[in-house]
């Protein structure tokens, strides 16, 4: 299947020739497929945002109280880190298109580095919350004991760990994808003429940072004005 693909020609009744689109080397097909896949991610996170909004409407004050305890400095730093990584990813794709393979690889490495920084900061943040007694499975997030938080706070933190956890999982997958991409570039299987894989991974990374752009205000900022 690796030999060069030559598109077939269909001939209509007037003898006119029409090029047939095959599944091989279909750049727009690959692009469309990945956009559709991104749509499923949006639906998945969308359902979680819906859940969050519903509980926010029920437990308004609890959500604001819980949010004000999150570390906005670390969360904000992470937002900046992720936005920068989206920039490096995009620059990498531009370099790939103009034929600067070396520059593209450099930019992918930069993106991986920023992704690891993001995960590191996230780990520090979760650890800090754990030492404050707030983590999945700890008493504060169980009902009916002396440390129990109010219902709204349990739900807020439950969703917080679920969504940031799932987002972090997507970051890890993204790092894996970028390493794979580098391997393919080194093997010469991704090139300026044939860069659909690079394109789609850049698209994936954009979605990952876009989701964070919504996660950040929903969790960190709603309690920003809460003085305590």
């Amino acid at each position, binding site marked *: 299947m690796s030999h060069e693909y030559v598109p077939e020609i269909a001939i209509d*009744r007037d003898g006119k020739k029409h090029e047939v689109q095959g599944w091989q080397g279909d750049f727009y097909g690959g692009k469309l497929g990945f956009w559709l896949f991104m749509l499923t991610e949006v639906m998945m996170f969308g359902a979680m945002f819906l859940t969050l909004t519903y509980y926010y409407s029920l437990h308004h004050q609890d959500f604001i109280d819980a949010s004000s305890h999150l570390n906005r400095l670390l969360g904000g730093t992470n937002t900046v880190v992720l936005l920068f990584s989206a920039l490096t990813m995009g620059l990498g794709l531009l370099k790939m298109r103009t034929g600067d393979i070396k520059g593209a690889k450099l930019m992918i490495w930069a993106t991986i580095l920023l992704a690891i920084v993001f995960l590191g900061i996230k780990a520090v943040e979760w650890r800090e919350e754990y030492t404050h007694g707030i983590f999945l499975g700890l008493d504060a997030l169980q009902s009916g004991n002396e440390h129990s938080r109010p219902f709204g706070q*349990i739900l807020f933190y439950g969703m917080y760990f679920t969504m940031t956890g799932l987002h972090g999982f997507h970051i890890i997958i993204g790092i894996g994808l970028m390493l794979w991409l580098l391997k393919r570039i080194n093997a010469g299987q991704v090139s300026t003429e044939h860069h659909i894989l690079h394109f789609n991974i850049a698209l994936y990374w954009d979605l990952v940072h876009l989701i964070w752009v919504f996660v950040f205000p929903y969790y960190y900022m709603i309690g920003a004005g809460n003085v305590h």
Partner: protein
Amino acid sequence: MSKSYLEAGETHCAIGHPKTVFWQWMLTVDHKRIGLMYAAVILTFFAVGVLVALTIRIELFAPGAQILDGDTYNQAFTLHGVIMIFLFIIPGVPAVFGNIVMPLMIGAKDVSFPRLNWFTFWLYIFGALVALTSLWTGGGFADTGWTFYAPYSLNTNTNVITTLVAAFILGMASILTGLNFLVTIHRLRAPGMDFFKMPLFVWGIYATAWIQLLATPVVGITLILALLEKVFGIGIFDPSKGGDPVLFEHLFWIYSHPAVYLMILPAFGIMSEIIPVFSRREVFGYRTIALSSASIAGIGYLVWGHHLFTSGMSDLAKTIFSFLTFFVAIPTGIKFYDWVATMYKGKIILSTPMLWALGTMITFVIGGLTGVTIAMIGADIHLQDTYYTVAHFHYAMLGGVVFLLFAGLHYWFPLMFGKMYNETHAKIAFYLNFVGFNILWFPMFIAGYQGMPRRYFDYLPEFQIYHQISFFGALIFIAGLIYMFTVLIKGIKNGTPSGSNPWHATTLEWHLPSSPPPLENHTKVPYVDFRPYEYHHGEPVVKFDYKTMQRID
């Protein structure tokens, strides 16, 4: 030159070039082979699901315990539901005929992502294996019903976790199938074939693929949330932490209601293929059938609330959901009138596929219209969770989707195997199935109307007569199924060669150079400048020279 795709060596593989026939099948990326493998696995699960259902029927033959205890009974109906829904009917028509026939119908060599298709098949098998392991591990198979309603699913000690994981994996497989088909239909249609020149089955698959793509992620994340709830206690669906179990029902049905349209739309597509071919007439109202598929998919998203009329919802929401549900009946009605109008003054040929299609017209109309009665809030308060609803669901799903799946099996049988089954025996099998089916399910409408609740292990003596009639119907139905599959399997083994277009059909999958088709389908891709069902005086209008795929009529 045209070797059949079934012959040894006639395939492309995902990895390498295996020498043995076994590995050539395991690693194949050919859409026809993958579809056949889906058919084998899916129909096996169907048989298992039927056997579990028979066990339930035997148990219900008389009040009190017969062969099962109450807890096992709960596991039995859950197993029946999980197998039939997740392993059989959701992949069902799209995975089998979407794979085998859809690329042929649009003149493509394969789907857009053949390797992804291969991966998806094995993902489905993996999900099925995970579901089966939960039978023997942990606290036994789930006893929650296939809907996994919170909070019971969160508290039960049975192995719900594994079943949830399995459902998630199977959902992933479904999403990837839909994605593959969407891109295929958008990108790989033969030159000249615009959307309104596609066969109606392709329209059905197209509408279905959108539902698979947009609705499945919602149930996926709902199952993940339930899973995290069970493992970490995040509180989302747990009332003791302020969570709302009704939210689970909402999120669950946001997917699972569109899922029933995901099942029926490709099946309606099969109907739209069979009716014009066996009436030898151009389909009536092509555009309305095509667009009604799309609008059923659209409206189907907005009606999930009718599953929650008795779960606690505002009266305004109930009224809106009730009205929206009625609207689904409009495009469905349009399809039925179109099919009937197609047959009017047609040259009707009562071959087995046509018999199945006509039988479905009766059973699905009963299933569909009883659905409208329970979409009414007042009637639903009385009928929710009774045998009436069970009978409605089975008339629509078994009498709609599965009957049409069988119709498709007979219709595309010569395409898949190049041979013909015994027509007389196949017809007898249909009549057995049809009679058995109605004796099995119709009494349940009456029992349900009189108050027999679903999922109950025991019942009052006055319902016994209905359960016993159902039981005898079940025996006839199962005899019919065994008969039908025997006829088909005999047909595969020693049926007479069928030629490439035994039904005088018009769509592209019947214009192949050999029967069964060769590896890469049509010899050349044709230019499509005709409508899919053109008949003139009962004969197909469009004819091809199969060497050059140019029109010669």
